[in-house]
């Protein structure tokens, strides 16, 4: 039964079915399965399957995102149980992400957040129009490895430098890495402001993030 349940968990992620994934997580707990086992042996392999198929062009971004969503919903069920026994799942890294102050464009940031989550990162999405001090506070709170800062306008991308300065003033640099991106952002700009990485698109951002945490 347990192996069937594990297989079903894996499949729920491959199918991108968040409701089914959550349902199976509840069932796993009811049957006394260790929540960490459920994640590591059930859901994570499903995400890995999807990632491999995406890499070779057999699956598309919407399928990756639905798979990530299924994973998130399952983890949301399982993590409170893990907290009771002080268990922590292995994550690729911890990321705080947001769009800079004065900019309300969301899509690029959300895409990167989802892709990082699908790749096993723990992602804390602050949304849009985020003041530098909120990036700092969240990074401190969660022990972030990476702060990812998005901007869509040439007039707001200067906010990325402001976030880097705020992190430095808070004593979080160089330990916390900064990854920047957005339509007007270039590698040269990233270098100019002292960012540690630049993602030209969501797929590239994940590659860079993995490099920044040594994964």
């Amino acid at each position, binding site marked *: 039964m347990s192996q069937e349940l594990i297989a079903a968990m894996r499949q729920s992620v491959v199918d991108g079915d968040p409701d089914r994934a959550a349902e199976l997580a509840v069932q796993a707990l009811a049957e006394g399965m260790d929540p960490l086992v459920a994640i590591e042996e059930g859901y994570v392999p499903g995400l890995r399957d999807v990632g491999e198929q995406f890499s070779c*062009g057999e699956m*598309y*971004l*919407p399928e990756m995102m639905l798979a990530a969503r299924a994973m998130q919903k399952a983890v949301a069920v399982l993590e409170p149980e893990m907290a009771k026994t002080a268990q922590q799942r292995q994550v690729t890294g911890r990321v705080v992400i947001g769009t800079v102050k004065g900019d*309300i*464009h*969301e*899509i*690029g940031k959300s*895409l990167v957040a989802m892709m990082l989550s699908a790749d096993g990162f723990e992602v804390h999405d602050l949304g849009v129009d985020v003041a530098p001090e909120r990036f700092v506070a969240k990074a401190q709170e969660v022990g972030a490895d990476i702060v990812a800062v998005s901007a869509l306008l*040439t*007039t*707001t991308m*200067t906010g990325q430098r402001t976030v880097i300065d705020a992190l430095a003033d808070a004593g979080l640099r160089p330990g916390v890495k900064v990854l920047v991106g957005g*339509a*007007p952002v270039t590698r040269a700009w990233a270098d100019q402001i002292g960012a540690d990485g630049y993602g030209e*698109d*969501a*797929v590239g951002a994940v590659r860079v993030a993995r490099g920044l945490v040594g994964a």
Partner: protein
Amino acid sequence: MRFEHPFLAEDDRLRIHRESLRILAEVGVRFLGQRALPILERHGARVDRETGIARIPGELVDVALRTAPSSFVLGARNPAFDHPLPSGVTSYAIDGTASFMTDFETGERRYGVKRDIEDALRVFQQVDLGVMAWAPTCASDAPSQTRPLHEFVAMAAACSKHGQHEIYRVDQVPYLEAALVAIMGTEADVRARHAYSLIYCPVAPLTHDGEMLDAYLDLGRLDLPVMIMPMPVAGSTGPASLFANIAVANAEALSSIVVFQLAHPGRPLIYSSATGTVDFRTGGYLGGTPEMGIMSAALTTMGRSYGLPSSSAGCTSDAREPGAQAVFEKLVTTLPPVAAGADIVIGFGEIEGDQNLVLEQILVDAEIARACGRLVDGVDVAPDRELFDDIVEVGPGGNFLAQRSTRIAARSSEFLVPSLSPRAAHEAWMELGRPSIYSNARERVSAILAGPFADPLPDATAGELERILAAADRELA
């Protein structure tokens, strides 16, 4: 017979309208900022102050569509370039606000600067089909807090056609007003002539940027026309079907029309759009697709059905460099809105999803636009086109080259003569150095930029504009 194609049957147009009304009434639209929600609430919209979402009833849309003018004249700094809307033929704007520029001399892709705005608009000034200037790239050499003001002034200085641009913040309003009065002479002239307008893009899906909308509402006191340009991308910031994405774009447009008309009934508006599709592999924006062309045409049809001057994005391409991909994508995205009867298509000069300005592309795009216009003009079926007497005279065999009617046709608009596409025979073409549409465009750009500045602002006006910008830079730091 003119070829026109609305891309939507009447029933489908009505369905989309109803869907948009349903979106506005049931889903609602988020309005950030201070000014819009009180206006909407006062007029009967259901407003949730906590979420900033207003649910707008169909009756308010009807009121707004009744007060929005069905025609007005796009004025210009030089009245010779005044342009009536609607106009019966499709005219063009230069594309706007690219972050990057391909340097004309070095080919380097870099951030745009004020000089690039000036150069591009000097080229656009010479394009017959061009009626609307826009700052085509960013002025990255201007301070970020006043950058759009610098861009606005650079545009107005370099081109005496109608000018459209944007500002982002309420505190930029007084400086823009002062600049427009400096250019046009008096506040009354700014209002009456409509020589400058604003472009307004809601943030898809279904969200209005607070500061920008507040600023544009403030500028209603100068009756600055607004081009409303929703931009949902089917599959990412818009739903994943063309029909639904069109409905969302239309809903965003209608919500904008409602707010602008409730605040200032009768304020001139242009219904426009700049949709796209998502790249399902990367999540990126695609603007050079047949789907984009279709949505542009359908939304043009919606705007026309509301009795509004109508426009759409077109001439868009995802190509990374000028060339064959750019040309075919620009044709695919321009012909549909032209066939649907767009008054203005936006716009010339950019590639990479409107993020990279290329000077020679302005002229290549004008060539594409002329061809689209010719296609839509179709077959002239007037009786004098039968030429039966010529057919009798020439008879079986022979040729028509020396007929009087052929001599007339050689100089008529029935046969389009391209400005840039080389037509020499092969060896002659080789001897000419193998010119291409792009090399000919580059030659023409060089000639324009080497020539005198057309229609400059008077020195006193230019000086006053510099003072206004300097004050803005100091005071908005």
